[in-house]
């Protein structure tokens, strides 16, 4: 480790933090410069991360410790190894592009400086999360990204819906933090240290019960952050934030922290097959449920939110069954195409003056051709068409479940791929195909009557279109090409890059079918999904009668889907309401009628005290004060006199 590498690491970590502070402090004076400053800080971090590539991939990575110590075993340091490097590159690289895009997207917002301060703070928090070399540092990053997400979901804090969504996201995320805290107790209790290196060194010798407990606690954290069932309900609501936030935090980076957590703690998961079974199953269930809900959404950002949840389900499934390279690869490719999809949706929303409902869109391939190209390529990538990045990563995950002996998960993953193809093409056909429906009244489209909301942006942005288009263009390159790193399976650059971490873990069971056959099966299912979407929304007769068809679909939508399988209602019934009832009972009955009444009785029962009490209650303040002072003086005098008398 050289001194310059150390300085680079500290700089790339702290730069976004100081930039956030500067932007936050100078605030209104900065205006347009806030975006430039914020973007420059993140992109400079990206350059530094690239410069550290060689050091990070060397054996042992770049490990700086100790920076700070709290107590025995509580020592903090930084670690940059291949796994954290993947995340750092995406956080600063894709994050930097999203910063650039935001210069255009947020140009007309009067709180643009606050926006960039939050965004930079988020990048710092996320870097803390992935660069920490210990559990508590991880938790610090974990909590800070949660609060950054809270700020950004509630960025337009005068909107009650945004405030409610922010609260929900925050509380569920704290529930996850608490899971991570319990994992820290267990692992510190068992190993006497919070450092990864110490914990992993002793992982093999720990009792299996301890490992399973720690894994489950870690997974609660992962599920809350990565929106896995049953802690997923906050993510669709989080779309209340500005669209670049959805792209950066609620698609590309923060929500994949759970994937990082599991990939980082691979030594623990490898030692606990039950935990792997649990994680893989939850991932598959989430992927499937979210895909089903994706078919029932009208808001373009909620469609993408459910697709994010579903794709993270794939990643969790991958790292859960032990196919770490594949799971992390899917994170890597997903970051490109999902950011691109969200930013493309942002272009559409921008062009239509905050319209997000695809029923009010239609025919946009002509109105916003660039956004159409971006969304179309993103769709091809996410559904896994060969030649696009999603194909390589998703197939690797799907086949990985089979290689590690989970045929049921494999089936769920294949079915989900088909549904994904269906709902993504549904969105493309309804929003970009046919004719523009912006002038059609809400009622004819089966939409609820809406309050006319005040426009968040002025009608014209002051920034040329290319400010928003160039970042999207760069992401298009990534969402096509990122997967090529993995061509060649175990001999590919990707697998070799991560070999120092996962080289030992190999497939446990010979898969019953070859990888090629598996790919063909998935492809067939995907084509079937696209075909169904085309038949329902894409044919000439479907587009001709689009208004009536969409209205019919909206009115016939099953309640179980519009209520997202009633998870919200269940949480409300099981947790929120009992806690409030208990609070009302304590405040309204126990405190006044039990405790206070008891104390009063005790006071009155001591007869003399009671008498004295009444006699003293003369209501004269001076009298009370005099009494206290006099008693104190008497006491002191007695002590002094007896002391003086010896």
């Amino acid at each position, binding site marked *: 480790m050289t001194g310059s590498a150390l300085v680079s690491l500290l700089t790339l970590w702290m730069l976004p933090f100081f930039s956030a502070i500067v932007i936050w402090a100078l605030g209104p004076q900065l205006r347009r410069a806030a975006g430039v400053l914020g973007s420059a800080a993140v992109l400079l971090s990206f350059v530094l991360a690239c410069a550290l590539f060689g050091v990070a991939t060397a054996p042992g990575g770049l490990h700086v410790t100790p920076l700070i110590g709290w107590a025995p075993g509580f020592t903090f340091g930084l670690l940059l190894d291949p796994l954290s490097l993947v995340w750092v590159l995406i956080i600063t690289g894709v994050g930097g592009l999203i910063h650039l895009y935001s210069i255009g997207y947020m140009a007309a917002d009067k709180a643009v400086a606050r926006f960039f301060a939050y965004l930079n703070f988020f990048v710092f928090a996320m870097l803390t999360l992935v660069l920490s070399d210990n559990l*508590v540092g991880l*938790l610090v990053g974990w909590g800070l990204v949660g609060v950054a997400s809270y700020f950004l979901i509630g960025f337009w804090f005068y909107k009650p819906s945004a405030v409610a969504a922010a609260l929900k996201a925050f*509380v569920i995320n704290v529930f996850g933090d608490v899971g991570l805290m319990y994992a820290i107790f267990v692992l510190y*209790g068992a190993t006497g240290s919070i450092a990864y290196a110490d914990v992993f060194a002793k992982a093999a010798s720990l009792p299996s019960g301890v490992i399973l407990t720690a894994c489950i606690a870690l997974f609660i954290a992962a599920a809350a952050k990565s929106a896995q069932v049953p802690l997923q309900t906050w993510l669709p609501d989080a779309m209340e934030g500005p669209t670049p936030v959805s792209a950066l935090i609620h698609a590309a980076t923060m929500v994949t922290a759970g994937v990082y957590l599991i990939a980082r703690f691979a030594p623990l998961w490898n030692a606990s097959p039950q935990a792997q079974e649990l994680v893989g199953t939850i991932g598959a269930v989430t992927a499937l449920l979210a895909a089903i809900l994706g078919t029932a959404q009208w808001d373009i950002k909620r469609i993408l939110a459910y697709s994010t949840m579903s794709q993270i389900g794939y990643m969790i499934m991958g790292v859960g069954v032990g196919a770490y390279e594949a799971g992390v690869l899917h994170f890597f490719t997903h970051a490109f195409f999902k950011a691109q999809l969200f930013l493309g949706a942002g272009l559409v929303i921008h062009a239509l003056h905050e319209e997000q409902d695809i029923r009010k869109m239609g025919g946009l391939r002509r109105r916003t051709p660039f956004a159409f190209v971006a969304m179309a390529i993103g769709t091809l990538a996410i559904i896994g068409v060969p030649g696009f990045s999603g194909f390589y990563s998703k197939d690797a995950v799907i086949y990985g479940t089979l290689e590690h002996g989970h045929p049921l998960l494999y089936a769920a993953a294949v079915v989900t791929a088909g549904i994904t193809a269906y709902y993504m093409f549904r969105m493309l056909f309804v929003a970009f195909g046919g004719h523009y429906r912006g002038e059609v009244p809400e009622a004819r489209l089966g939409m609820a009557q809406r309050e006319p909301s005040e426009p968040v942006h002025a009608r014209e942005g002051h920034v040329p279109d290319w400010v928003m288009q160039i970042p999207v263009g760069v992401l298009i390159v990534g969402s096509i090409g990122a997967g090529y790193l993995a061509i060649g399976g175990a001999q590919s650059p990707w697998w070799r890059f991560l070999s120092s971490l996962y080289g030992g873990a190999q497939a446990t069971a010979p898969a019953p079918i070859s990888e090629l056959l598996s790919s063909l099966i998935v492809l067939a299912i995907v084509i079937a999904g696209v075909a169904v979407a085309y038949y329902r929304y894409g044919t000439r007769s479907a587009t001709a009668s689009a208004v009536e068809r969409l209205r019919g679909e909206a009115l016939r939508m099953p309640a179980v889907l519009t209520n997202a399988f009633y998870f919200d209602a269940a949480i409300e019934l099981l947790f929120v309401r009992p806690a409030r009832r208990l609070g009302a009972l304590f405040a309204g009955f126990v405190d006044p009628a039990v*405790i206070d009444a008891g104390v009063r009785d005790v006071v009155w029962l001591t007869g003399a005290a009671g008498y004295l009490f009444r006699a003293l209650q003369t209501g004269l303040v001076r009298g009370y004060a005099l009494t206290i002072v006099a008693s104190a003086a008497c006491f002191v005098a007695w002590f002094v006199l007896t002391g003086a008398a010896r």
Partner: protein
Amino acid sequence: MIAAIVVVPIVAGLLCYLAPRRAEALVTSVAAAIAFASAAAVAVFRDAPDESVRWLVQPFTAAFHFGLGPGPGTWIALMLGLVAGCALAVTRVPRRRDFVAQMLVLLGAMMGVFLARDLLTFALFWDLQLVPVFLILVGWAPEGKSGSAWRYLVYNLSGGLALLLATAAYGMLVGTTDVLGSASAPAPAALQGAALWWVFAGLGFAFLIKTPVWPFHTWMPDTYADLPAPAAAVVSAVQSKGGLYGFIVIATVLLPGPMHAIAPLMFALGLIGLVYGACVALVLDDAKRVVAYSSLSHLGLILVAIFTFNPLALGGAIVYVVAHGLFSAGLFITLGEVELREETRFLSRLGGLGERNPKLAGALTIMVLAALGLPGLAGFAGEILILTGVYQAGYPAIAALSLVPIVLAAAYMVRVLQATMHGPEIPDLPQREDMTVLELAAFAPLVVAVLLLGIAPGAVARSANAIAASPAVATLSLRAARR
């Protein structure tokens, strides 16, 4: 010089009454300067030798013995100086000169509590600190609300009386009360049997009421709600820490036997308070009462930590005592600013202040985040050290149960933030200007302290090392671990 930290504020407070009423702005500034100077003095003289004047020989020896040193008292005194300075700097109440005078007396009396190295001196300052709070409650509580003053006095004076009697008994039995100087003093042989238990009962009763521990807590919400915000800040931040400080520094070292024996009961009371306070904070509408009940919850956690006798948890307890002082003072001060601007502190009537008061919103946000235990800020450092220690001491179920209120804390603290600062602006509320530069400057030390303590609590945590390493505690934690 150490004694001056105690004496100067009290004398200055009494001298305030000589100043003309018109000079109240000047008096306030001087008082804030004295408070900050007391914090600086604590920092400067932390390694200075103890100062002691013997004043009692019969029936037992006692001394006006003050000291700083590496123990927890130094950190709490430092926090007290900062909190009092900030609270005084933002004070804007009617009859300000008289209020400031009482606050200075309170500052000196509380310094006396935490710097005292003699049990009798400790007990005398313990009672002295009731006087200014009682007078402030009587003089400045909202119209027709003198009930809270009485309730405060009846509760705390009965605690104080018990403490005084127990101290006298201790002095008679042991022959001296000048015993708080070192943490490693072995328990004296003279204390045995019933006498030991009576002494402990007196001390424990006083500490339980002062903390307050459930179910002795009902004086607290009334007191905090009726005190003007600066006084509520100081009382909640520091005065209520006297009880926990007493348990850690006095009872654990002097009376380890009974401490160990009542640990199960204290676990139960601490856990009840922990959950009870959090649930109540979830539903109340009065912002100050929400903070009051959140204190009940947080202090319950510290109580649990103390009775594990685990070194990590004891260190965490000190960190959390200081952290809670900082953020509860910060919360009361910022909520006081809200009340000053909007003439109400009921959450259902507030909203949208952040739009026009970004600085106040920022200040409240930081304190709310510290209070709900955001990793990286002071509250979290205390929580994680405490709970890791509790788990390590062999109580995984208690550690797990203690996590529930952390989730509730996120809900009720964010509720306070959102109900005041976020959402649409409420049109019929009066609007005032944002925090001034001076107010921000006075508030800044609290923010810096919350950040520093969150990042590097090591020095504060280590202040409990001497206690954790004392022979009495070492055997206790060993016994606790074996159980």
